[in-house]
C-alpha cells in the first residue's frame, strides 16, 4: 500500500533541470534512502516533499491526497511531517526540553501531556538528564539525538532526514546509524532519508533509491541493489566494482580487448558495445596459468588486515582491482592469472 507517492516530479531553475521526472512510491512504515553524490537532486527531492519548494512539474501526494503540484503547494506547517536537518537546526535560545516540546505546544496539547511525552521521548533517545541544558552545551551526537527527539515527538505522518549524520565523526556516525534504525523499528514512521554515505543507506534503509544527475538510477532493497546493480554508476557507488567495457561477441560474451569475458545472464547484442561489472572480492587471482583465466601483472599490492588489495593490469593495460585473502602474498610486478566467474559478471549500462 503506497503511502507517499512522487509522480513525474521535476524541478527546474531557469533552463537548468536539477530534478528530472522522479517516480517513487513509499509503503507506509518503510524507510527509504535517497542515495547519491552531492548535486544528484536528493535534497531537492526531500525539500519538495517537505513543501519548502514547489515542483516545476509532477506531484507529491500522501495517502492519495495531492500536497504539491505546479502552482499549489500546501505549506510545510500543514503537512504533518517532521524533518531532521543537516545542521540539526536546534534553536539555541531554547532549552533541550523546550526544543523538543515546540511542536507539541503548537498543537496546543495540555501541559501535563506535553511534559509526559517530551520526557518519554528524551528517554527514548537517552537524554533525560540534559533536558535543562542549551543546545550549545551538548556534543554533536547529543544534539543529533535532540533533533531526532524533536522530530519524533510530534508523531509525524512522514519523517524526513537530510544528511543527518554528516556532521558527526566516524565512530559516532556508526553508532547513530544503528540508532536511527532502532528508532525507526520502534516508531515505524514512513521515512525518507537522504544521504551520500552508502554504509548509512545499507544500515538504515528498507529500500535504497540511487540517484544521479537528477534521475533515479535504480531502486530496490539493499541486497538487490548490491548484488544486481543495473548501471556502472550504481555498482561503483555502492560497494565499488570493476567496470569492464568492450564489444559483444554474442548475448553473453564480451570482448574486452585483453580477452573474452562471459556473463551468466544474456544481455548483449552481438557486435554492439557493452559493459559488465564485477566486485573486487569476486575477482579470482591465481599464480599459475589456467583455462579461461586472463594473464595480468600486479602493479601494486596493499595489506589491509582482513584482505589484501591488489591493483592489476591486464595485458592490454586495462586496470583491474581485486581484493584477495591476506595470505596471498604476491610481490609487485609478478605475473598472475585472473578468473572472472560468469555468475559474478553482471551486464550493466554505463
Amino acid at each position, binding site marked *: 500500500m503506497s503511502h507517499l507517492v512522487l509522480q513525474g516530479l521535476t524541478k527546474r531553475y531557469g533552463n537548468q533541470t536539477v530534478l528530472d521526472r522522479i517516480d517513487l512510491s513509499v509503503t507506509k512504515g518503510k524507510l527509504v534512502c535517497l542515495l547519491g553524490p552531492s548535486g544528484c537532486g536528493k535534497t531537492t527531492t526531500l525539500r519538495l516533499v517537505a513543501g*519548502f519548494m514547489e515542483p516545476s512539474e509532477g506531484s507529491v501526494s500522501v495517502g492519495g491526497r495531492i500536497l504539491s503540484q505546479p502552482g499549489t503547494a500546501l505549506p510545510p506547517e500543514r503537512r504533518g511531517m517532521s524533518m531532521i536537518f543537516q545542521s540539526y537546526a536546534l534553536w539555541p535560545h531554547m532549552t533541550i526540553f523546550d526544543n523538543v516540546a515546540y511542536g507539541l505546544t503548537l498543537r496546543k496539547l495540555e501541559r501535563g501531556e506535553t511534559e509526559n511525552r517530551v520526557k518519554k521521548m528524551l528517554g527514548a533517545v537517552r537524554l533525560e538528564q540534559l533536558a535543562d541544558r542549551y543546545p550549545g552545551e551538548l556534543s554533536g551526537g547529543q544534539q543529533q539525538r535532540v533533533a531526532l527527539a524533536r522530530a519524533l515527538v510530534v508523531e509525524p505522518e512522514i519523517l524526513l532526514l537530510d544528511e543527518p549524520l554528516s556532521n558527526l565523526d566516524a565512530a559516532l556516525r556508526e553508532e547513530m546509524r544503528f540508532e536511527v534504525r532502532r528508532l525507526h523499528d520502534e516508531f515505524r514512521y514512513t521515512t525518507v532519508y537522504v544521504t551520500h554515505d552508502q554504509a548509512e543507506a545499507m544500515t538504515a534503509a528498507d529500500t535504497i533509491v540511487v540517484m544521479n544527475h537528477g534521475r533515479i538510477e535504480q531502486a530496490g532493497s539493499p541486497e538487490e541493489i548490491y548484488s544486481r546493480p543495473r548501471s556502472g554508476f550504481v555498482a561503483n557507488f555502492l560497494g565499488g566494482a570493476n567496470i569492464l567495457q568492450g564489444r559483444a561477441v554474442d548475448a553473453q560474451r564480451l570482448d574486452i580487448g585483453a580477452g573474452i569475458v562471459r556473463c551468466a545472464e544474456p544481455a548483449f547484442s552481438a557486435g554492439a558495445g557493452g559493459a559488465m561489472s564485477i566486485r573486487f572480492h569476486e575477482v579470482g587471482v591465481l599464480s599459475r596459468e589456467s583455462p579461461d583465466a586472463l594473464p595480468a601483472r600486479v602493479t601494486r599490492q596493499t595489506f589491509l588486515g582482513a584482505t589484501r588489495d591488489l591493483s592489476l593490469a591486464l595485458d592490454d593495460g586495462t586496470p583491474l582491482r581485486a581484493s584477495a585473502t591476506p595470505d596471498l602474498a604476491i610481490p609487485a610486478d609478478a605475473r598472475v592469472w585472473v578468473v572472472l566467474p560468469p555468475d559474478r559478471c553482471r551486464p550493466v549500462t554505463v
Partner: protein
Amino acid sequence: MTAISASAPAAAGRVGGLDLSGPVLAASGIFLAGLVCLPIGWLVAYAFSSRAGDPTLSNFVALIDDPTLFEPLVTTFGLSFCVAIAAAVAAAPLAWIVARTDMPGRRVVRMLMTASFVTPPFLGAIAWEILAAPNSGIINKIWRDVTGAEDALFDVYSFPGLVFVISCYTAPYVFVVLSNALDRIPADLEDAAGILGAGRWRVVVGVTLPLALPALLAGTLVAFLQAMTLFGSPAILAIPAGFHTVTTKIYSLFQFPPRPQVASAAAIPLLTVTITLLWLQAKLLGRRGYAVVGGKNGEPRLVALGAWRWPVLVLALSVLCLPLFFPYAALLKAAISRVPSGPFDPANLTVENFTFVFFEFSQTRVAFSNTFVLAIATATAGTVLALIVASLAARRGGFFGRALEFLATAPIAIPGIVLGVGLFLAYTRGPVVLYGTLWILFLAFLTIEMPAAFQQMRAAFRGLHPELEEASRILGADRLATLRRITAPLLKSGVIAGWCLIFIGVVRELSAAVMLSSSATKVLSVVIFDLNESGNLGAIAVIGVAMLIVTFAVVGFANWISGVGAGQRLRTG
C-alpha cells in the same frame, strides 16, 4: 509563489500568502539611494559651478593655486599618515599582549581599551587641552614646578600635539580589529611551526604576525580615515595653533563670507580618498589569507610572560592613561574646580559649573533633549531600516539584494563634514527646506550611522541558518509564528547591538552636526564645541560627563532588556 533560490526560500516578507518583498525592496532601495545621492549630487554640482552658477573648474584650480586651500590638503594627509603609524605602533603590541599572553588583568585592559571608543574624540581633545595647554595645562604646570623650566613640556596646540591626541582616539580601532583577529588565529597553525622546531618567539614573528598582518593593515587604514575625516579635534587644537586641516577649512569656508562652491570642491578629494581606501580595506579583508583566521581550532595558545608579567601590565596600564585615565581625571577635576588647571585645594572647589550648566545656561536643556530625541529616533529608524534591508538581502539575494546591500553600506564612505555640506546645500533651498529643523540632523545621522548597524544586522542574519526557520515550519508553525518564536528572539541581541551602535554614534557626532544645527536645533556636541571657543572648560566637563552617563545608562538599559530571559547561548554546534 515567485522565484525562490535553492538555498534560501523566501521566509520573510510574506504576509498571508502575499509577497510584499518586491515593493518593500523597491521602496527601501529608492529611499537609500535618495539618502546618499541627493546630498552628494548637490555637492558635486556645486563643486563644478561658479558663484553665478555656470559650470567651471575654477574651484579646483583655486584648491591648488591658493596656498590657504592647498596647505590644509597637505597637512591633512601628513596628519593622517602620522596618526595611522602612531596608532598602529601603540595598539599592535597591546592587542598582542591582550590576546596572546598570560598578562594578569588582560580582560580588564581589553574592556577599558574598548571603552575608550565611547569617548567622543572632541571631548578627548578638550580634556587634553586641560592637561597640556602650553601655559595652563596641568602637566606643563607640574613640569615647571618640578624642574623650574621656562618652557612647556608638551604643547598640545601643535602638529605633534594634534597627532598625539587623535592617535589616542583612533588607536582603539586598530586595537579592536587586531585583537579580534589574533583571537581567531587557530592554535594549530602556531603548533605546526612549533613542531618544526621554531622557538616561541620565532612562532610569534614568523607565523602569528604575518597571519594578523591583513587585520593590522585594515585597522591602520581605519585609523588613517578617522584622522583624515575628523573635524572636532583639529578644530579645537589646530586652529589655535594657526593651521588648518581640510575639514576645518571646509567649515571655515562656510563662515562669513561663505564660499560654498570652493568648500564643495575641497570636499571632493576627501570623498575620493575615503572611497579608495575603503575599497582597499575591503580587498585586504576579503583576501583568502585572512579567511584562515576564522577556524574553530580550539583556544589560542597563550605565551607565558614569566617574570615579565607585571612590568608588561604596568606598561599596558600606562598606555591606557593616555586615552582614558588622564583625560577623565582632568574632566572630573575640571567639573568641580573654579580654575580647571588650578591646584588641588578646597579653595578651588566649586559647584558653580553644575549650577551654571543645569540652571543658568539656557542651551543645556534644549541640547540635551535634542540630542537624545535625535539619538533615540535615529537609532530606532536606522535599526528598522537596517533590519528590513538585511532581511531582504539575506533571504532574497540576487542582483537587487546585492544592490540594496551596496546602497546600505555606501554612506560609510562619506565623511561627516562632506555629508554635512551636501545636506546643507540640498535642504537650504526649495522644494524641501529642512535647514533649521531637527529633520536635517535626523537625515544626516541616519545616513552616517546606519551602515554600521546594517553590517551588524547582516552578520546576525548570516548567522541565522535558514534551517532554523524551516525546522519551525515543518513542525507546524506558520510564517508569523516562526517569526515571533524563532527569528525575532534569535536576532534580538544583534538588533539591540545595532541600536546601541547608532545611539552612541549620534551622541558623539560633531562634524555633520556643526554644519547643520542652528540656534534652535543645537545638540550637545555642538554646544560643547561652542563652549570651547568661549573657553568655558568647567561647563564642558560637566556636560561631557553628564552626556557619557546618560549614554551608558541608555546602552545599559538596552542591554538589560536584551538580557531578560537570559541564559541563552547563541551558538549551535
